[in-house]
């Protein structure tokens, strides 16, 4: 299945794009999607604890299952003001 990744701020920079398509095995969870991204973008790994996973606009956990066509947003806090 394919999910659309939406990335914000620093995470978007690490992924070198605000959006990308990610292919995952059927039944994969949000946490598995994060791990899959970390395998390609090592700078992501230290940001997991401070990043919220958001599926189709609703907060999710590592264990939340993804479905084909879902949007998974990776949302860090911003510090600037």
């Amino acid at each position, binding site marked *: 299945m394919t999910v659309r990744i939406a990335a*914000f701020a620093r995470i978007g920079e690490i992924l070198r794009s605000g959006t990308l398509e990610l292919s995952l095995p059927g039944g994969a969870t949000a946490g598995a999607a994060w791990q899959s991204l970390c395998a390609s973008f090592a700078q992501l790994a*230290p940001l997991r604890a401070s990043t919220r996973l958001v599926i189709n606009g609703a907060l999710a956990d590592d264990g939340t299952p993804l479905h084909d066509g879902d949007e998974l947003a990776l949302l860090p*806090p911003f*510090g600037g*003001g």
Partner: protein
Amino acid sequence: MGRPESLDDSDAPSMQRVEVEQIPTNSTPMVADLRRYSRHLLMPEVGLDGQRRLGRARVLVVGAGGLGSPVLQYLAAAGVGRIGIVDDDTVDVTNLQRQVIYAQPDVGRPKAATAARRVVDLNPHVAVDAYPVRLDAGNARDLVRAYDVVVDATDTFGARYLINDACRLEGKPDIYGSIFRFDGQVSVFGPDGPCYRCLFPQPPPEGTVPTCAEGGVLGVLAGLVGTWQANEALKLILGIGTALVGRLLLIDALSGRTREVGFESDPSCALHGAHATIDAVVPMPDAPTAQPPRGIVELDAAQLDAYLAEHPESYVLDVREPHESALGPAPRGVALPASVLMAHVKELDSAREYVVACRVGVKSAWALGQLEDAGFRRLKHLRGGLLAYAVARPEFEFF
């Protein structure tokens, strides 16, 4: 969420431990100048009652920078009766690109008092308390207690958690805004609803989220987000509309799109969950800093030229991104941006000695870990990055 409580006639906050400069004004608790507020009075959602509510309201704005500038100007223009301004900084020329409450002659002046005078110039009926201090665990609750609504216009994660906790413990709404480059976030953490910790239980590791000073920010984005915060503050005071409670608004200035993420109170929230562990405002423990791996020798910027002169076989591995390299060239530099470092790592000679450097020393610390894992053994780190190196060098553009 209802209106903030205790919108009684404005009294000077009784600050025991906080230095405060009260700016003389013509403030009265009543609406003193009806013509000024004509366009408010014409709307039934505000009207004379609403304008009086604004005149009795007390708002604390923490941070008089990019977000604080529009917040302060719109609250003052709207006739909020008393405004507190907390900021211990002075105006720097790099602030003027977005901190529109200041003007060129203000460079070097203290922000709290300068912004306070601008507020009084805008609306002499507003009473202003300027606090030229840093909000900390010792003063946060006293400051927050004296106001009805608090606006978080700060620029550090530590301050954001402090404000969140102090507001929750004092039963005050916290109007949150934050910005990064082209992206903004706005939400309202009410005394009863979900809080900042429900949304982001942990701050990111120190150094992994660049500040405006490190990562840059579009000036007008601060205006967009701060203006949105001012709107939420006015709505709360007036008791109109729907507050951004349990809703995180995301503003993308590049795409021109906004989106919303809903969130609820976290039953495990450390501040107000079933097993809450926070019952006082305490300093945030320092988040782990992005450090180079253990055992890596660090060079100070002042040592770099001498070191390179003594070690002709050494190169500076410059992991800045191309737009950052516009600052100036690294001495004896090999450029390989961090974003593509591992894709091109085989182009480097792992037997050679590299002094790894970036703009401020954060990305380079990360790069050192990656290079060590890839088998590089002769690595050094430029502490403070090329920005520190550039300070004393006229050939560098310093920004």
